[in-house]
């Protein structure tokens, strides 16, 4: 077949995929500015009232947002610590079963989170009296760890370990080698993993909906609950803000480490 025709067909296909990916987002963003009580497209007029409604609705979206941020940040922070050392141990040392161990660290990725949540629920009800935040945190710690381990391993996998020897020969003690050489060079992988892990925790519904208590509810659960009762453009407004926040995060990461880290 003619090369040019293939090229042309590829472009059309790529264009269609882009439209398919972006169109719903564009619709939601535009629809969030509608003054009507139902989501309509194209919107009839312009209003910010649904954005104001985020703060005034009977559902406490802001409380949910704060909970989600707290949960995501703490879980990510703890897991960066655990995940980086797990990745280091697996990559630096040669020992029997190191691949098995790596698969073990990343296994929560393959276990359905509903099944995992169900098991946790059983455990919690046996023990009893575990506060809402801890119930979710324990679950999130487990399910987001794989993202940090995997991304850190992908950097350390090609790491030149003689750099550590070089630093050691110049008088750096093990801790100094880690903080001055290994960690700075592994940073792109660690940051990429941390971002993905945080976004996953922030977005997580299945596990959170099973484990959360009325006292500690995350934003996605709030949104779900609201959706069950009312279906007005407030949800479009929230979605628009979340899309914006994601964009800001991605741009920030691009500035910090470069996006090529994510497509590996």
């Amino acid at each position: 077949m003619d090369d040019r025709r293939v090229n042309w067909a590829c472009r059309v296909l790529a264009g269609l995929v882009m439209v398919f990916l972006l169109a719903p987002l564009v619709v939601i963003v535009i629809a969030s500015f509608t003054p009507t009580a139902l989501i309509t497209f194209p919107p009839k007029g312009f209003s910010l009232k649904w954005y104001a409604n985020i703060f005034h609705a009977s559902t406490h979206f802001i409380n949910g947002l704060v909970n989600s941020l707290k949960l995501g940040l703490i879980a990510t922070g703890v897991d960066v610590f655990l995940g980086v050392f797990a990745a280091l141990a697996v990559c630096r040392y040669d020992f029997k079963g190191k691949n098995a161990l790596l698969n073990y660290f990343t296994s929560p990725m393959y276990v359905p989170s509903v099944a995992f949540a169900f098991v946790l629920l059983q455990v919690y009800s046996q023990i009893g009296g575990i506060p809402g935040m801890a119930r979710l945190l324990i679950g999130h710690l487990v399910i987001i760890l794989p993202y940090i381990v995997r991304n850190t391993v992908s950097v350390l996998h090609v790491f030149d370990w003689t750099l550590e020897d070089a630093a050691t020969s110049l008088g750096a003690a093990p801790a100094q080698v880690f903080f001055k050489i290994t960690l700075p060079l592994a940073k792109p992988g660690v940051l990429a993993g941390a971002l993905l892990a945080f976004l996953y925790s922030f977005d997580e519904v299945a596990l959170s909906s099973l484990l959360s208590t009325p006292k500690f509810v995350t934003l996605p659960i709030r949104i779900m609950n609201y959706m069950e009762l009312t279906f007005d453009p407030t949800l479009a407004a929230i979605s628009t803000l979340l899309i914006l926040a994601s964009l800001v995060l991605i741009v920030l990461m691009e500035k910090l480490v470069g996006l090529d880290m994510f497509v590996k």
Partner: protein
Amino acid sequence: MATLELKGLVKRFGDFTAVDGMDLQVAQGEMIALLGGSGCGKTTTLRMIAGFTEPTGGTILVDGEDVGKIPPYKRNIGIFFQNYALFPHMTVFENVAFGLKLQKCSKEETARRVGEILSLVKLTGLDGRYPRELSGGQQQRVALARALVTRPSILLLDEPLSNLDAKLRVEMQVEIKRIQRELGITTIIVTHDHEEAVSLADRVIVMNQGRIQQIGTPQEIFDHPASPFVADFMGFSTFLHGKAGGAPRGGKRPILCGEKTLWVAQEEAEDLDEGESCLLALRSESMTLVEARWENAFPGRIESMTYKGHTTRLEVSGCFDEPVFPALGEIPGSGVGDEVLVHFPYRKICVYKA
């Protein structure tokens, strides 16, 4: 500046013995080359001196003191790594200053010493560059500067020239030797290239299978290898099997190779009994083509010719049962298939018991 001594150094990995009872004394300011093929134990020896690998047995003494219990970051040994191991996230200045900062040198002192060492390796003005912005030769000199700036007691060089092209290699040989002399630092260089070892070191140590095969000056090792293995490693090309002949005459001893008699220097063959089998070794450059039938000149047929730039290497059969490989400075008039007379100078023949 220090002396180094290895006493019965042994390293085993499971069933494999990488270094098998190594004894060595290195004087202050001396430059030693550990020469051998891959897996001969030279790099393991280097890593044990640096402290990265723990010996299975034996001791390492620096200035007469056992350093076995001293962790690698306190040994004050400068290392030049084969792949340079420059820190990619640091500039040239930061790379070189790394060790000084750990020693808590003041800012002014650090800047002064980095400046000094960079001018010694001729890199002044490149302090702000990152390693990836430098050529291979420049990266190498940064690595050398970084290893030297902390004034280590011993400098270890791991295959320092293997990644460079031929021209740069010669330049760096001169450079490394100059800097080593200027600083008078005790140096051990690990290499698999006999020319590199011979041109850099005061003494060369040939290793094989974890054992020292020969210790000597470059001249000794180059001209009188202690064993056929060392001869082969040092680039001897022609090996002939023979049997020792009768009494020496005029400082020469006859060796019977098949029906022919080859004369060798008497002192080379002194410990051979009459009729004892032996192995003779010659360098390609020692043999020449001659016109008349001198002593030690034998006729043969050219089987192949390989042009190598400054020499032409021949394969000649018929002189003896085994082929010989003379290398000639000029292209001979004769070609493949022609009969020639090959001369074997008796002083250049090494003799081993076989």
